[in-house]
């Protein structure tokens, strides 16, 4: 076995894993916040996430069309697409809740889940329809900005591109902001109260419906930010490319303990690392018999094992069965 190679790629794999992990963490927050409040898996969150990426690419493409992409300062452009992507995804998340979930709140548990699956499928083709009519193409490429592709060589085996740094910094900022909102503001207290006990919260004068909408708004905004960062980092997006990251982010949420906000962050980073290491080392360790193509299976196996042996996740509380 080629030990120098195994050791040599370690820092790069670690970095890739952390970037992937932050992405998962941002998406996982949407799942976990909604689950915390409604005990419901928002299956459509993967599409809410990818809509953010599409809003971002549309803005970049129109800036490019107007010739502004090169003239505007690049941090401004980044902030612009991030904010727009967050707004788009948040608006979508709130309307999805109003239309497809709220009428079903009293129904048996599987009913809103099936509706959410329907929303997910519907949105995938809706994005495709809109982009087909608008651009006559639905596989879109993020226009590159030269600054973002510059790479710093940290050591001889480790380099980091500007866009990776952007992803890390933006993700950290988002996570910090969310943490502050949930733990330090009145609204955050209300969200936690509704998650604890809806009836009691409403007796305390909290408008439960508004808080639920707000939860979808915040979760959607985080998803939208993740979508834009996903596009910036990986470049190519299509209406269906949200699905697998969404599923993995859900795995991350479960891994950290669903309903638990710090858990989603930890779970995301752990899963990102696991996946990055599986993708690079599986092939080396098995002599090429099993390669990176098994990384998806890896994530699902983690999910199944966690659910069987530690259903409350790494940081979570015990999940109650709703009567």
């Amino acid at each position, binding site marked *: 076995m080629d030990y120098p190679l195994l050791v040599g790629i370690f820092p790069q794999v670690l970095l890739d894993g952390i970037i992937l992990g932050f992405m998962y963490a941002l998406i996982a927050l949407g799942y976990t916040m909604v689950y915390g409040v409604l005990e*419901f*898996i928002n299956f459509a969150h993967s599409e809410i996430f990818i809509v953010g990426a599409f809003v971002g690419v549309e803005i970049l493409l129109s800036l490019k069309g107007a010739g502004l992409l090169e003239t505007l300062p690049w941090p401004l452009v980044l902030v612009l697409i991030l904010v727009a992507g967050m707004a788009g995804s948040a608006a979508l998340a709130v309307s999805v809740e109003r239309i*497809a979930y709220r*009428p*079903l709140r*009293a*129904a*048996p*548990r*599987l*009913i*809103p*889940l*099936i*509706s959410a*699956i*329907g*929303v*997910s*499928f*519907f*949105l*995938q*083709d*809706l994005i*495709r*329809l809109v982009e*087909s*009519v608008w*651009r*006559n*193409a*639905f596989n879109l490429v993020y226009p590159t900005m030269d600054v973002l592709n510059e790479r710093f060589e940290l050591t001889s085996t480790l380099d980091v591109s500007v866009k990776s740094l952007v992803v890390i910094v933006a993700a950290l900022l988002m996570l910090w902001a969310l943490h502050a909102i949930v733990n330090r503001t009145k609204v955050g207290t209300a969200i936690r109260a509704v998650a604890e006990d809806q009836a009691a919260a409403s007796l305390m004068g909290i408008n439960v419906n508004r808080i639920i909408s707000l939860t979808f708004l915040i979760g959607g905004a985080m998803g939208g930010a993740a979508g834009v960062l996903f596009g910036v980092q990986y470049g190519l997006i299509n209406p269906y490319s949200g*699905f697998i990251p969404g*599923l993995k982010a*859900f795995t991350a949420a*479960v891994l950290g303990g669903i309903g638990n906000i710090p858990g989603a962050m930890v779970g995301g980073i752990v899963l990102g690392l696991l996946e990055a290491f599986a993708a690079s080392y599986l092939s080396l360790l098995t002599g090429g*018999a*099993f*390669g990176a*193509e*098994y990384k*998806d*299976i890896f994530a*699902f*196996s983690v*999910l*199944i094992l966690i*659910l*069987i042996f530690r*259903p409350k996740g790494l940081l979570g509380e015990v999940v109650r*069965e709703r009567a």
Partner: protein
Amino acid sequence: MIHGVLAVAMVALSAWAVATFPRSVLVFLLFQGSLLFTYLARIPAWLRGALFAVALLVLMPVIGYYNGYYLEVATQVGIFVALALGLNIVVGLAGLLDLGYVAFFAVGAYTWAIFGSPQANLIFGGGAFPLAPGWFYPFLLVGLLVAAGTGLLLGLPVLRLHGDYLAIVTLGFGEVIRVLANNLDKPINITNGPKGITPIVRPPMPFGLPTSEAFYFLVLVIVAVVIVVNRRLEDSHIGRAWEAIREDQLAAQAMGVPLVRAKLLAFACGASFAGVMGVVFSAKQVFINPESFTFLESIGVLAMVILGGMGSIPGAVIGATVVTVLNLQVLKGLSLWLNELKNAGVTVLGYSLTDLPTQLEPAKYERMIFGVILILMMIFRPQGIFPVRRRARELER
């Protein structure tokens, strides 16, 4: 009386119309509509049975003789009816949401595909394969057993999970099966990866029937068996146990229903139907690859069950028919029609259709159809179009 006359007249008229205009999708839809009317009309059971027998055993093959594609559609409908009935046991009766159902279909399909093609030689060496065509019939049973076994294997670890977690894990399982099928071309070539397996041996055709007719009748027989089995299961001890679990797991357990065994049985039963149809599917298609067994297919089958009504046998049959026809005929027909208009340069309200984007193809939007079905049914009619009475009451609010 009037219903009886009407039903006979409609079936006869629409069959004649299909024979006269064999290319018109609308006329074929009319034929299907007349069958639906026959099912719903207030007519004596013998007349209904006779009309169905005539339509399915005589008229359909004759129509197929004029237009082979319709027979293909009918066969596909049959395959999906069996799948929907299988999923109906898991989701409808036992109340376990299985989002990876198509995995069992894949397992059945690959079972015959590997042994009914030279593929098995790559695994075991030698040149004994493909098996003789006659082996197809015993392999229906093998496919059933392998799929049921897979169902048990999946069920054992995950059935302790409740509701929505179970759904996600079955989804993951379906993806795992697909990824395995996609990548098990090394280190040992078992599935031939994304290239798929071909040629797969077809069974010997009884009575010298042409291939498509033979498959149509084969599927029809299997569907009939599946419906009978479903009927018997529903009223059996185990069927009642499933419904009890669906309504209230705790109460069922208190009444002495062995939870794990009953749930495992539901998984295995549902899976076995899919396994049998998988064997038929692989032989019919001659070629299979992992693309036929995606999450989209699982959700399609789920949409069929939901549309008809969870737990309802006629619901599953009608749901499967409607969704399959929608996919294979209405969406494709719409695509063709749009293309014709486009090529003819028609203008609508001052907008020339030749300017329509080329990527806009109605046939590609089956996800949207499934999505709309699922959302609308859940919001407005969660018990389905043809609900079981007990289920409808359960969902009343």
